[in-house]
């Protein structure tokens, strides 16, 4: 059963005659596809980061030209905000956390030789590349790129006369459509692979948690994206042939879009968050040398949070003009989401209790995620309370909140996974000192950049404004914008050790052993890096769960999933 499909074919005959193009470009190998997603995501992270830098400069010193860029007018600022948000969410967070880690880890951790549909997988990454191209082109066409916010609310987004952006907005929609198609193909693959291609012994309740999180995230995406696609088609029709789905003057309703967008949008933030939580859940036990605390309950919590995420969307719309009687029900469901997430966070902390904790670089990032996500989770309660949100919504408090959650997921969660699996991905070790410097600098300057934004948000500063000095009540607080901007520049500079580390490691790093961290899961039983089709002639067989660290059954402090124990030794 499991050995069906293209993946098994012939383990030996396969590699030799695959040339450069088939290996690196038009590859059907899930590991190469993962790396392609990773490269595209990192490319966009640089673009999104530079856009953020230009925005931050503008906010701190509004009347000055940005070095290397020039004067930022309000039109440009709106483009920057919109494209930064779009890029970070759809072209950095999703391709890296879901695309790269999903592709790389799912087959390797469940003992499959490749995805269930390798060609569809290749199509997925190429459609994503096309989406990237479309988004990139939109910067350079007349009228410029989209500028109606990453949320694209009509009527602003529905008519060129409101923003002066014409083609940019259409390409923005097209780029989204393509990237959704890419992730739909990926998602179908993830689910099929995880259901159909697990190695013997790999039951659902022996799966590593990151797999559970990736699958839940994928499911949320598949279930929520439909309404948004319908919404986007209507937006496109409004724009191109002048229908009135969102135009009040023709009987349409602008709020319809907000409902459709956020019905997708809230699950979407969990599509980003859950894989990051999964990466962290898999790193913590390895370096605490202890089983994850409450494995099954974490799975139930994840599913509960996923389910709840479909009935909270209107918390983005408390002051939108929808019926005010809807606010309290949505406030209650929203605040309830803190229950499953509190469970998961507490379980992470309880995993450390009585552990034997090693502070290697991946662990530092994972711990950084825990600490930062606690802040982001707690500030979410302010936004979730309808009366508090009357004041908080559309201020920098929200900006601070979602960077503590999203940035933590992408950067702290992402780097935890990256440093942990880099040896498996590339067969080289990274430098520990450089990795640690990278972590500490990022942690410090992330907080310098984003923590004060809570304060200026409470002081009332609105988001998406190009010049805070146009408001008298904000002038006394301008120093905060300067602090955040300087912090942001140093935060970007803090990524230099990372680049140096990776380049140096790829060129001259030490060769990685099979299992450098002493971890239990199946990917560590394959060579580093795993060859095409991952294992030699025989696949591993699974005998136990993924987190048997310091088990009393063996003398070592780890017990791989595929090791046979002849008889009980005690």
């Amino acid at each position: 059963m499991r050995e069906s499909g293209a993946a098994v074919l012939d383990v030996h005959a396969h590699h030799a005659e695959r040339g450069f193009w088939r290996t690196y470009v038009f590859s059907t190998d899930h590991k190469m596809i993962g790396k392609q997603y990773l490269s595209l995501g990192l490319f966009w992270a640089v673009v999104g980061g530079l856009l953020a830098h230009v925005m931050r400069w503008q906010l701190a010193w509004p009347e000055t030209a940005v070095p290397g860029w020039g004067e930022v007018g309000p039109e440009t600022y709106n483009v920057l905000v919109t494209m930064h948000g779009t890029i970070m969410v759809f072209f950095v967070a999703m391709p890296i956390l879901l695309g790269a880690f999903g592709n790389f880890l799912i087959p390797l951790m469940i003992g499959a030789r490749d995805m269930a549909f390798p060609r569809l997988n290749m199509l997925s990454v190429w459609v994503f590349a096309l989406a990237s191209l479309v988004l990139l082109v939109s910067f350079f066409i007349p009228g410029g790129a989209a500028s109606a916010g990453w949320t694209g609310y009509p009527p602003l987004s529905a008519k060129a006369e409101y923003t002066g952006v014409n083609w940019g907005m259409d390409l923005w929609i097209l780029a989204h459509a393509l990237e959704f198609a890419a992730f739909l193909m990926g998602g179908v693959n993830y689910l099929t692979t995880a259901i159909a291609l697990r190695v013997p012994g790999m039951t659902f309740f022996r799966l590593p948690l990151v797999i559970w999180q990736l699958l839940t995230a994928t499911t949320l995406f598949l279930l929520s994206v439909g309404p948004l696609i319908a919404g986007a088609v209507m937006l496109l029709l409004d724009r191109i042939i002048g229908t009135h789905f969102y135009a009040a003057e023709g009987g349409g309703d602008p709020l319809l879009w907000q409902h459709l967008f956020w019905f997708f949008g809230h699950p979407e933030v969990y599509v980003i968050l859950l894989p990051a939580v999964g990466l962290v859940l898999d790193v913590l036990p390895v370096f605490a040398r202890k089983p994850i605390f409450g494995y099954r309950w974490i799975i139930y919590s994840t599913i509960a949070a996923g389910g709840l995420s479909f009935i909270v969307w209107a918390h983005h719309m408390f002051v939108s003009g929808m019926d005010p009687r809807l606010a309290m029900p949505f406030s209650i469901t929203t605040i309830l989401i803190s229950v499953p997430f509190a469970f998961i966070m507490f379980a992470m902390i309880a995993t450390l209790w009585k552990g034997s904790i090693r502070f290697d670089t991946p662990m530092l990032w994972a711990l950084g995620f825990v600490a930062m996500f606690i802040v982001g989770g707690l500030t979410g309660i302010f936004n979730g309370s309808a009366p508090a949100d009357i004041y908080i919504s559309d201020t920098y408090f929200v900006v601070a909140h979602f960077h503590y959650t999203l940035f933590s997921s992408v950067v702290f969660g992402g780097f935890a996974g990256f440093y942990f699996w880099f040896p498996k991905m590339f067969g080289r070790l990274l430098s520990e000192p450089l990795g640690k410097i990278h972590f500490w600098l990022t942690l410090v300057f992330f907080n310098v950049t984003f923590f004060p934004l809570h304060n200026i948000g409470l002081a009332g500063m609105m988001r998406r404004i190009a010049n805070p000095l146009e408001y008298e009540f904000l002038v006394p607080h301008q120093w905060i914008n300067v602090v955040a901007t300087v912090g942001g520049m140093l935060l970007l500079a803090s990524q230099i050790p990372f680049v140096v580390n990776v380049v140096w490691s790829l060129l001259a790093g030490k060769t990685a052993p099979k299992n450098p961290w002493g971890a239990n899961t199946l990917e560590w039983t394959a060579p580093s890096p795993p060859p095409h089709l991952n294992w030699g002639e025989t696949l591993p067989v699974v005998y136990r769960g993924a987190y048997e660290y310091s088990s009393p059954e063996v003398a070592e402090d780890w017990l791989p999933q595929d090791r046979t124990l002849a008889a009980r030794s005690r």
Partner: protein
Amino acid sequence: MLNWMRWLPENVSTYGGEIDGIIALIYYVTLAWFFLTLGAFVLFLIFYRRRPGRRATYVQGDRLRELAWILVPVLIVLILDFWIDLRGAPVWAKVKGQMPPAELTIQVTAKQFNWEILYPGPDGKFGTEDDRQFDNELHVPVGKPVRLVLKSKDVIHSLFSPNLRLKQDMVPGRTIPAWFEATKPGKYELPCAELCGFGHSGMKAWLYVHSPEEYQKWVKEQWPTS
């Protein structure tokens, strides 16, 4: 930086204090959790760092007795959640639910990138001769409930008064009610809080809260004949 309540601008509305109360409640609850969870986290990192010869304890946390250590805190989270919503519901209802009767109703229409503020005039009715429109100036008396009728001509805007703790989006095609009662005379900014195009940054009006006498004087100046 750590006492967040001090960052809020001065409150000058009757319900603002209650909104601040909810923000304060959430602030202190979350602050306590922040220190508890981060405290436990840091202590564990220190106590259970790797030391030679000490093996981690094999705890899976799948038995109820172990799970209780986190299920009880989770239960407390749940109770606090309900408490926050229970305290919040009446505040929401007061600000956005049933509006108190008001002598003065003012229509605010947003358009790229101005607020058109329309007074019904002495007859109290819109659409009559004595209506008067002011651009970006909202004059109200102190201590009197004021009704707002919010509209938009083009895209979505949002009327925001940091000092009144009032925010309400204005959506084309809808007529959205709002209200406030100011408690202190003065001049306050009314920025637009929803991205509405290139003029969004800087789109604002001024709210003038007058003492009763001053307000009468202003009315006399605007409608001299009546």
